[in-house]
């Protein structure tokens, strides 16, 4: 077996990333540039999140990785085993047992605590990018708080679809100051971003940006007075655990077009089933 420095990255790199994290925590929602390192996995696999996790983990940590809410996708399994191998940390699939949770596209259903850190994998950190491709200009817009453009995007949504159709990566304003992309989580998760007890860290590897929400930060989803933000989800109970308050994935169950709705957070669903809750599609 190859010898690695603890959690793969050398100490100097981890120090540099920790500094970026601290700066991010000091200026909630502000994108801090950092010198992203090559990681032994492709960018699409969340190298930003992996580097943040690498800079955070200590031998006492318990690590959980979820991908769209699931612990068992290829992506989640390989990131988990990467840190088992390079840091020897304990891993878990139970949200409540983890001290560090790396996630792609979801926030766990169970409320997180002050003893936990949530690390998001971010593909595109710049919320203004889609209408203003010039980085020099978007940086200026952030520094001068010129965020009219964000509402232009929502305006376009309504004019095209009759309602705000943006359902992932729904932009938020942090502490009344910075507009932030919460990564491609469903907008159902947006209300959990605000006032969360856990630290939230966002890492974008290819784009070399880290940003953060310290505990109990005010986070507001952008909207219009006559088209208020709605944290929508599929209007069903979970087919397996009967939960009515969780974000659901639609799953095809046979080749006759049969489908069911199940919790995207597999740990949440499994725990509810173990506690005796039973949905209409449960065996």
């Amino acid at each position, binding site marked *: 077996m190859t010898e690695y420095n603890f959690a793969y990255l050398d100490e100097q790199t981890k120090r540099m990333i920790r500094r970026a994290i601290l700066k991010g925590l000091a200026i909630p929602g502000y994108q801090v540039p950092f010198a992203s390192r090559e990681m032994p996995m492709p960018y699409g696999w969340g190298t930003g999140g992996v580097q943040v996790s690498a800079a955070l983990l200590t031998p006492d940590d318990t690590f959980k990785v979820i991908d769209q809410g699931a612990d068992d996708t290829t992506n989640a399994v390989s990131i988990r085993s990467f840190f088992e191998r390079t840091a020897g940390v304990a891993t878990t699939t139970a949200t409540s047992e983890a001290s560090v949770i790396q996630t792609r596209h979801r926030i766990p259903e169970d409320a997180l605590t002050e003893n936990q850190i949530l690390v998001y994998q971010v593909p595109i950190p710049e919320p203004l990018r889609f209408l203003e491709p010039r980085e020099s200009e978007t940086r200026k817009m952030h520094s001068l708080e010129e965020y009219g*453009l964000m509402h232009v995007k929502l305006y*376009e949504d309504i004019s095209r679809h009759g309602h705000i159709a943006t359902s992932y990566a729904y932009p938020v304003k942090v502490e009344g100051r910075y507009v932030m992309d919460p990564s491609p989580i469903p907008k159902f998760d947006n209300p959990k971003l605000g006032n969360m007890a856990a630290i939230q860290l966002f890492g974008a590897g290819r784009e070399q940006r880290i940003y953060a929400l310290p505990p109990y930060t005010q986070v507001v989803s952008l909207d219009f007075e006559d088209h208020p933000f709605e944290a929508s989800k599929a209007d069903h109970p979970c087919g397996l655990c009967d939960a009515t308050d969780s974000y659901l994935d639609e799953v095809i169950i046979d080749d006759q077009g049969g489908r069911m709705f199940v919790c995207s957070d597999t740990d949440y669903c499994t725990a509810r089933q173990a506690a005796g809750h039973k949905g209409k599609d449960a065996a």
Partner: protein
Amino acid sequence: MRPLLSVQGVSKRYGAHIGCADVSFDLYPGEVMGIVGESGSGKSTLLNCMAGHIAPDAGKVIFDTRADGPKDTVTMSEAQRRMLSRTDWAFVHQHARDGLRMGVSAGGNVGERLMAVGERHYGDIRGKATDWLERVEIDATRVDDRPTTFSGGMQQRLQIARNLVTGPRLVFMDEPTGGLDVSVQARLLDLLRGLVRDMGLSAIIVTHDLAVVRLLADRLMVMKSGRVVEAGLTDQVLDDPQHAYSQLLVSSVLQV
């Protein structure tokens, strides 16, 4: 009466080249100033210095702000200057695509400035955008279409609507009719003239086209090699130019 804009000794060099040199004039509320001169004479440089797009090397550009009265826009903070440029100022580019968001609907283009100053009611924003499309003679049914589907003249009118929706007091225009067909130009000029009159706008309009200043401008400045060589009432300068260069400029046009 206090000038709306007072330009005092504005100079801008590009290395050893002179962009514009020691330009001074006052613009009063409701007045339209034309700036003419051959290519390279410094018209755009001067306009961009006044509009805050480039920083002059020397001089003051004092604007009579609504809140605090006359303020030098050269030394105010960038945040204040950018706020002016999306509220009290308008800038109409020669090429509509420099002044429009081509990937955004006509309504979104017009609504952007409203949203930038804090309007958050979709229905109101859309209503105002639609009104403005009609004011610039674009059919309201085109509100959700992108400017890429518009003709050159329509794009230019959309650019004007997008700029005027916040009720600015000063409009900067750089060759607003350049590159358009003659008949399209005429319609645009009529529209501009009507808007200037109805809204009581002050404007500074840069152009090669003496017919444009004849129609729109109360006063005229003639530039050569970065300097103003003659200034006066438009009809006076055009009918009785004093400076040799102005005489040449006027006669070369008359020969066309």
